[in-house]
């Protein structure tokens, strides 16, 4: 057994070493490809006036190779797009920030349409645990990864995962996974991988290399940061967002239109910032918005049509309504792009976006610590109490629709928002439990409170203590901790 364990860890080490070497080689290839692309571009411009006339020059006069003409014929047949639009696309470069629910569909369409160079920024990895969650309710994180066999059968349809990330890329970066999918669709597009989080320290350098930026991120500080960076660099920004059953789309900092700060000079309170992983999202909604982002980026790159600048598209999936509204123009008072704005590269590098918006750059869950340890119990300790048959009441303070997804046996659902009016219900449940287990009233059924991650349960216990139920304790880390430390088969969402 000992030697087996040693063998396994040796293999694991070797796998890690090989993976690191592989990712290093891929990185070097992409650098060489980008250098090659630049050399070819230069040679084309230099030699275009005196290039030898091929025997069959039908495709060459417009700069498109026979392969390109065949591949993009549908585009070329559009009178309002044609050779001119396609040639511009082939020379343009687009950066997509975020390879999740919005970025995945955008990337696929952008690579298929023949953008010259396509950059992808994301720091997330494709997680194995998400694979186990694939068949759960639609409240799942939208960056959930769907197994490839489910792709074909159409189950879970709508998640970005279904679109771009597959099982083969578990534990690799989302950028690697997305880049492989894009190359598989169109190997003639130069795909550049940026496997890092976009920050004020690297944003200027990364974004400067592209003509157009697509914001497909999932958090508020990133949205301000990307918009400001586009203003500083003078790049158009195609911005999309989705939550629940609604989506929003607009183009910032383009053709005299507003930037993000012109519209929202002051960040909203953090309590108004919902995340898909908490509030839910129907995967096809970011899918629709991501496709529209690709469309707007293509329109700008090819100078076709009217970009969605100074206007915003609002998508309401439930009522099947799309409304396009007129926005204010560039604000003279805007701190980023206004008349007297002095928002320089230096200022951008030093700006603290997390402080400005009071929320983290990565959409990681909040971890509160409101209670002393004596008012808390770990999920393992709670398990002991259950096994020992201790008389107790477990109150689950999650919203009702969460409770319906999964709950612990015999738990009592009283959502935090209605706790105030349900104190009597808790008291009578405690009395019932005391009678059932033959305890003298008042001497003792314990009161435990649980929620999804252990934040709301602490708020509830604080309130219960204030209302005289001083023995209430919260289960640290909530149901996520129960699933992690006690019952690995307990579903998480």
């Amino acid at each position, binding site marked *: 057994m000992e030697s087996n364990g040693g063998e396994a860890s040796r293999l694991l080490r070797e796998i890690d070493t090989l993976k690191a070497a592989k990712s290093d080689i891929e990185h070097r290839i992409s650098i060489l490809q980008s250098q090659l692309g630049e050399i070819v571009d230069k040679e084309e411009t230099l030699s275009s006036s005196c290039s030898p006339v091929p025997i069959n020059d039908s495709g060459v006069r417009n700069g498109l190779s026979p392969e390109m003409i065949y591949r993009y014929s549908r585009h070329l047949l559009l009178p309002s797009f044609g050779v001119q639009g396609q040639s511009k696309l082939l020379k343009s470069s687009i950066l997509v920030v975020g390879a999740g629910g919005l970025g995945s569909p955008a990337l696929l369409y952008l690579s298929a349409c023949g953008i010259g160079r396509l950059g992808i920024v994301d720091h997330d990895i494709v997680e194995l645990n998400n694979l186990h969650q694939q068949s759960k309710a639609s409240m799942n994180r*939208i960056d959930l990864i769907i197994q490839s066999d489910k792709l074909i059968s159409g189950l879970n349809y709508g998640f970005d995962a279904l679109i771009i990330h597959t099982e083969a890329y578990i534990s690799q970066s989302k950028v690697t996974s997305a880049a492989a999918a894009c190359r598989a669709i169109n190997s003639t597009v130069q795909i550049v991988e940026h496997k890092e989080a976009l920050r004020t320290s690297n944003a200027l350098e990364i974004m400067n290399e592209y003509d157009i930026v697509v914001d497909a991120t999932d958090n508020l500080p990133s949205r301000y940061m990307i918009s400001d960076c586009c203003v500083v660099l003078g790049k158009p920004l195609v911005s999309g*967002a989705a939550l*629940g059953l*609604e989506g*929003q789309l607009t183009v910032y900092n383009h053709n005299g239109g507003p930037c993000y700060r012109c519209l929202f000079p*002051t960040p*909203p309170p953090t309590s108004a910032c919902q995340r898909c992983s908490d*509030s839910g999202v129907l995967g096809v909604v970011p899918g629709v918005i991501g496709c529209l982002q690709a469309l707007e980026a293509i329109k700008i790159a090819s100078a076709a049509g009217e970009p969605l600048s100074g206007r915003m598209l609002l998508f309401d999936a439930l009522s099947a309504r799309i409304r396009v*509204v*007129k926005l204010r123009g560039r604000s003279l008072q805007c701190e980023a792009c206004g008349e007297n704005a002095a928002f320089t590269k230096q200022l951008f590098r030093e700006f603290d976006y997390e402080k400005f918006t009071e929320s983290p750059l990565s959409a990681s869950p909040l971890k509160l610590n409101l209670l002393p340890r004596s008012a808390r119990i770990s999920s393992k300790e709670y398990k002991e109490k259950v096994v020992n048959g201790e008389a107790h009441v477990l109150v689950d303070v999650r919203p009702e629709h969460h409770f319906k997804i999964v709950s612990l046996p015999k738990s009592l659902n009283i959502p935090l928002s209605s706790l105030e009016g349900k104190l009597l219900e808790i008291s009578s449940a405690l009395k019932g439990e005391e009678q059932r287990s033959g305890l003298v009233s008042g001497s003792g059924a314990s009161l435990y409170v649980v929620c999804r991650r252990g934040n709301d349960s602490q708020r509830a216990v604080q309130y219960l203590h204030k209302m005289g139920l001083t023995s209430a304790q919260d289960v640290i880390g909530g149901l996520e901790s129960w699933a992690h430390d006690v019952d690995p088969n307990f579903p998480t969402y």
Partner: protein
Amino acid sequence: MQLTLEFGGGLELLCQSVKIHNVDVVLQAGETKLTMRVLLSWIRTNVIKERPEMFMKGDSVRPGVLVLVNDCDWELSGQLDTTLEEKDVVVFISTLHGG
């Protein structure tokens, strides 16, 4: 005055998850016109059912809410001083950042 009010981007949660409200706003004695300033306080009293601070800050909407009068940003029509007319459609949308 007959108006259509619409709430989106999560603001509908403050009015019992109803997105579209057809309302009849009666002008107070002495008032000759209905401005957005007056309408906002009317909505706060008559339409918003919970957490009014998630809808308003001071006498205007809270940061992160777009106000559209007949599909136009209210910045273009005078913000709080925008005068409303019969059958106008006023939309309140909270900005989304998920993706």
